[in-house]
């Protein structure tokens, strides 16, 4: 069976997590794994798994451009802003897991079809992948919502240097996604939005938790519960560890709260790091949509 060949750039935790997931994919294979440090243990381990590896960063993507069709960028926003024009010139599809926001914001369960025509998509943030779909589902069942707020708590152990250096970007990107996907109000000025994040160092590390708050007059909790529950099932289809912990409930009059946790699949990373898992799961999901479309279009045999 034929698979679509992918490159991963960035040999940190996210890159390795992606590699493990691609190994299991029916339509994707990893043909190039790129880092920037020859001594990287992850690079060495990837090599041992039989993957073609390189330590010369973007140059490897240029030199071996015939090896792949999709690139997963798991480096940093700064690095991606530099690499993006090069990849565009080479005609490569890019799944960007950094907070660079070069490409269209992509939350697969909400807009994978709109992203099929894009050359570069951005996977928002971990909190965005968990809460934006629920915010969308909530506002569908409760169009009179005037305000949306999300807060994510992740374990300190799961927050790498990239996350720690870019907390502001995390907040701004998550909020932008809330605004784009759930911020429009029929006939109104648009909803107010807010996003926040907490890093908790407890040991053993805590599992990622997210809460969504919404303000609305006379909300129909039953309808909201149904809509949010249905969306949770869609998310679970590509993020199996996603689980609603507190069903939509009135915190006080006019304020709805819903809490979900995300447990990771344990691919390279421990299960508590659901925050890393949900963004890579979303990236893989989008790449598989590309792959299926191309395989079908070209009449290549799928299975």
């Amino acid at each position: 069976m034929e698979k679509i060949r992918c490159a991963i750039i960035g040999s940190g935790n996210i890159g390795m997590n992606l590699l493990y997931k691609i190994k299991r994919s029916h339509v994707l294979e990893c043909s190039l794994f790129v880092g920037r440090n020859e001594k990287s243990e992850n690079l060495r381990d990837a090599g041992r798994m039989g993957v073609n590896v390189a330590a010369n960063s973007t140059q490897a993507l240029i030199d071996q451009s015939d090896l792949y069709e999709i690139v997963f960028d798991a480096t940093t926003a700064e690095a991606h802003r530099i690499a993006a024009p090069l990849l565009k010139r080479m005609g490569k599809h890019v799944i960007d897991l950094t907070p660079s926001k070069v490409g269209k914001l992509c939350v697969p369960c909400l807009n994978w079809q709109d992203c099929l025509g894009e050359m570069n998509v951005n996977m928002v943030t971990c909190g965005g992948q968990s809460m934006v779909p629920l915010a969308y589902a909530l506002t569908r069942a409760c169009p009179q919502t005037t305000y949306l707020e999300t807060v994510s708590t992740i374990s300190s152990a799961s927050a790498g240097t990239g996350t720690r250096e870019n907390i502001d970007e995390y907040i701004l990107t998550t909020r932008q996604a809330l605004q784009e996907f759930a911020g429009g109000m029929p006939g109104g000025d648009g909803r107010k939005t807010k996003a926040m994040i907490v890093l908790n160092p407890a040991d053993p590390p805590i599992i990622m938790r997210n809460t969504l708050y919404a303000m609305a007059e006379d909300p129909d909790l039953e309808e909201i519960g149904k809509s949010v529950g249905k969306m949770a099932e869609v998310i679970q289809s590509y993020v199996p560890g996603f689980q609603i912990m507190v069903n939509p409930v009135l915190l006080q009059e006019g304020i709805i709260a819903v809490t979900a946790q995300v447990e990771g699949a344990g691919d390279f990373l421990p299960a508590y790091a659901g925050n890393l898992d949900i963004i890579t799961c979303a990236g893989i999901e989008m790449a598989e949509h590309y792959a299926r479309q191309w395989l079908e279009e070209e009449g290549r045999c799928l299975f």
Partner: protein
Amino acid sequence: MSVLKKIRFMDSTLRDGSHAVGQRILPEHISAYCQAIDQAGMHSVIVGHGNGLGASSVQMGLCAMDEMDMLSVAADNLKRTPLGTFVTIGFGTIRDQIVPAMRAGAQTFCIAAHCTEADTMRKHVEYLSHVGREVYGVLMNIHLASPEKLLEQAGMIQSYGADGIILMDSAGASTPEDVKAVVGTLYDGLEMEIGFHPHNNLGLAVSNAYTAILNGASIIDGTVGGFGAGAGNCQLEALLALLMKEGIQTGAKLYPILDAEKAVIEGMLEYGKAIEGTCVVSGYAGVVSTFKNRVEQVASDYQVDARDIFVELGKRGAIAGQDDLILEVAQMLSREKYRGR
């Protein structure tokens, strides 16, 4: 014991005090308080949401007024004392809070993170230091880390260019021995100034501030009337009287502080000054005082004991900003209670 420097007071009455009134600080409170306290020789008057700018939210309480307007009103009414503000990483950003706060007149910035997460504030501290603002790194919930860990984290903040470090005993859970060990370790290992911000859950706020001073702290971050989250803060006028007795210089003036308390703060307090039972338990459980209002509300909604909620939050290692966990814990306790019947 170190040579005592002049002690400076950071006045967080209008910041931590916001928690005491459910973030319902009004413009008239700010203008009256700032006019009154401007004569009192405070190093800086800190204004904003209790959890810092950007924290006005359902999660941590919505401010009664725009956060930047809080700063503007304060700036208009402070003629001698520099206006300061507070930003917690993860709630406020450089773009949306720090830059507008500078425009609104803030001179002094306290940039806060949980006590093990100092590296998350690097950009913010470096930026403020670069643009010439006075900037302090704040480590919260210090009872959850060892003195050695806190020294490592404070050292990072020093390397970012901060003017000093403020240690927050956010749950009022530190013993006098803890304070002595932590402040002493940091004093020996750092070049920059050390500040301490106690809470009064175990009745130790003034005493712990004094211990911090004797071990090298030169800044005490407290409030007038002890006005603050949960059991409240170090009551600055009481500490000042103690320091005056001991001949320790502060630059602060006792009567103007007492007058400001009488004129403004007394009327804002919704409860008595004794330490409430839930606050004692929050200090015992090592859980931030800022959870108090939500814990009490949710305990009543779900017919469970607020004290049990605090104990469970302590077991789960809840830290500042995790207010959403309260609801989940209350639901769990309520289910257990129902099953137990």
